[in-house]
């Protein structure tokens, strides 16, 4: 019998991406793009540490209507003490697929990748699922977000050009945000919150101007 999921939000999108500096541009692109689409990006970096982290991640996925899984950095992590593949992204994709299959609430999941057919090689269980290929570019991420999510109202549809304006605002202020929060990296909850709010305000100002 399916377990009742936590409070479900139709706007919430679980963002399963690598958190490393080489990915910062695409990290900003995902947040800016999703906010432009009127969606609510949710990420594991919002989850405080401590016990039951896995339960909290699963709850977060199940509370989201959709999830995006960027598998473009499923590669060997050479940081000591061991060289290991990065399993977090495919693991969380598995949790989302299970949630979509077993929960009573609807859940759609999308796989984003840089290269054609690579995801079906590295994760052959995905055969038959077309990934959204962004080619590692900011514009590519935004284009694929627009392909994945379509606003019903024509007047409210977002364009890549508008998303790029918001992205530039986020990118420009990221350093100041990090200084304010005294965060060691951009992938911390306090920074995520401020990046999110800068993106929302920049996106809204375009709609009203």
């Amino acid at each position, binding site marked *: 019998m399916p377990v009742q999921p936590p409070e479900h939000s139709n706007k919430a999108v679980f963002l399963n991406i690598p958190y490393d500096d080489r990915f910062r541009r695409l990290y900003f692109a995902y947040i800016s793009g999703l906010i432009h689409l009127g969606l609510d990006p949710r990420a594991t970096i919002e989850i405080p540490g401590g016990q039951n982290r896995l339960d909290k991640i699963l709850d977060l996925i199940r509370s989201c209507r959709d999830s995006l899984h960027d598998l473009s950095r499923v590669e060997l992590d050479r940081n000591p003490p061991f060289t290991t593949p990065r399993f977090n992204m495919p693991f969380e994709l598995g949790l989302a697929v299970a949630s979509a299959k077993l929960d009573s609430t609807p859940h*759609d999941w999308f796989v984003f990748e840089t290269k054609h057919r690579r995801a079906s090689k590295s994760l052959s269980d995905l055969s038959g699922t*077309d990934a959204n290929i962004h080619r590692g570019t900011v514009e590519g991420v935004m284009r694929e977000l627009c392909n*994945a999510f*379509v606003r019903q109202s024509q007047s409210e549809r977002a364009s890549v050009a508008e998303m790029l304006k918001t992205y530039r605002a986020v990118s420009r202020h990221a350093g100041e945000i990090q200084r304010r929060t005294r965060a060691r990296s951009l992938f911390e909850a306090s920074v995520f919150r*401020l990046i999110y709010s800068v993106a929302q305000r920049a996106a809204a100002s375009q709609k009203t101007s």
Partner: protein
Amino acid sequence: MAHSVIITTPMPTWDETVERLGLSKADQEFVIRLVDEKGSRRPAASAPKTRFASSRPAKTVAKRASGQVRKTNNRARATA
């Protein structure tokens, strides 16, 4: 197959965003100052430099571009 999801929910307002993120008053003011007051203009320090943008006066650059002034070959002058 690639698929799409139709979105029917409206864009969240600023107040909804503040509530969702639990932004403090100070954080709200910080974001408003960044976006509304500093605007979308690129700060001067990081403005893209044109090919001739340097410490040289614009007049010299324009003359050099039009061929009125030739670039001084300091190395040749030093060895002369």
